[in-house]
């Protein structure tokens, strides 16, 4: 069934909105229920949002610059690597975004990521391994995917999701601790609150990962909108997944930023509830629906 990249984008946006709504509901529910155990649901809800707000303000301003230095990325100009710079410029023109900073990471493992909480403060990075293995069309597809993350504010999206998960974990932790001191409260509400506090952090994490996977599909569809060439990206994903060199500088904190998860074993089907990326096979099928010829890739 042929799907236009516009439709693919709309579907993905609807799904991620629903997931974020789910998280906000969870956060509110926790606040209300915990507040109710002490007899004041409203204060509970307000308290939950205050915690989220506090965490949010800190994370918003603290996070951005360290990721690039952590991965050993070096900024490059047009003269250092004309083709890479040109491709980023081409995608800048196609998307109407401001020109991001361009970085190269010394590593044989092929991968790429984008960072920055809005298009004016953004950067894309690729490894030397990626530059060596992909042809121009494939590289263009990868850059288009990364710039789509910037365009769709995915980095900001992921930050918000992380803040909510963190807040839920914090509140749940605080509540469970407070129960140990054995203070009184409505017995039914206590049971509900305990259940929620125990299950919420896990559910929130699962939701967070589901959101991350959805945004990856969205970035793929947006990339096709930019290049109008689904084959480039499909071929690139295939090549990257079938490479077995590990990326030394990635870790659990940064894995969601890369185009293909650098930490999971490289199989086409690898994915579970806690994967930040969908399995490559699913992504190739989605690209196939948008017109890529994936018969030789599956």
């Amino acid at each position, binding site marked *: 069934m042929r799907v236009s990249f516009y439709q693919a984008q709309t579907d993905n946006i609807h799904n991620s909105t629903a997931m974020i709504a789910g998280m906000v509901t969870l956060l509110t529910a926790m606040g209300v229920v915990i507040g109710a155990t002490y007899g004041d649901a409203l204060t509970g809800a307000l308290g939950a949002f205050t915690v989220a707000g506090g965490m949010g303000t800190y994370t918003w301003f603290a996070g951005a610059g360290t990721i690039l230095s952590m991965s050993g990325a070096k900024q490059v100009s047009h003269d250092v690597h*004309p*083709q890479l710079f*040109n*491709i980023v*410029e*081409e*995608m800048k*023109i*196609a*998307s*109407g975004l401001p020109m991001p900073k361009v970085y190269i990471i010394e590593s044989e493992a092929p991968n790429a990521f984008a960072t920055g909480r809005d298009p004016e403060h953004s950067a894309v990075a690729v490894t030397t391994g990626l530059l060596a293995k992909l042809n*121009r069309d494939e590289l263009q597809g990868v850059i288009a995917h990364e710039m789509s993350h910037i365009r769709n504010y995915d980095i900001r999206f992921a930050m918000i999701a992380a803040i909510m998960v963190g807040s839920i974990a914090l509140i749940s932790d605080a509540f469970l601790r407070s129960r140990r001191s054995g203070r009184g409260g409505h017995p039914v509400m206590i049971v509900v609150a305990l259940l929620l506090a125990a299950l919420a952090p896990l559910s929130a994490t699962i939701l967070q990962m589901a959101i991350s996977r959805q945004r990856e599909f969205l970035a793929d569809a947006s990339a096709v909108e930019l290049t*109008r060439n689904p084959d480039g990206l499909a071929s690139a994903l295939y090549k990257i997944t079938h490479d077995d060199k590990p990326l030394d500088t990635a870790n659990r904190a940064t894995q969601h930023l890369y185009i293909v998860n650098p930490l999971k074993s490289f199989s086409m089907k690898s994915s579970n509830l806690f994967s930040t990326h969908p399995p490559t096979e699913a992504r190739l099928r989605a690209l196939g629906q948008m017109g890529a010829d994936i018969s030789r890739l599956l």
Partner: protein
Amino acid sequence: MFWIILLVLVLLAMYVIMIYNGLVTLRAQVKNAWSQIDVQLKRRYDLIPNLVEAVKGYMGYEQETLQKVIQARAEAMKASSMATRAEKEGMLTEALKSLFALTENYPDLKANQNVLQLQEELTSTENKVAFSRQFYNDSVMSYNIKCETFPSNIIAGIFNFLKEEFFQAAEGDRAVPKVSLR
């Protein structure tokens, strides 16, 4: 009662202003996108003489192709109307494709760093021209959608926002370019 009506009117006015500003912004984006195409075309005109110079020494026997490129460039730069311009641009693209195809026959030329860099720059410029046209069409689409969907179409009608035209490829562009390898 009076205050409620006043509030509703104020909200309505704000809504209308919001839509009006949205239309103004989208139309400005369309105009900007159009001028960006010219920026890329100019880049191409500037690059071509360098390419011809670099290639001339090696491809002495290919005068005809080289001449075609120089000629096509001159004509494209001279063109006045949009339709002629698009047609001449298409012919320039064809001439460049023939030239690049011919470089396959000259291993020394292919290995020359200057030529490789120029080829990359020209490839990129061709892409940039294409993408700037694509972005122009995308901007036109967003603007036209806003002009035609309800309720912004009412405001568009009142303030005379007209639909814009998509960039169309010239007939010559659609034909598959012939590459003669002599």
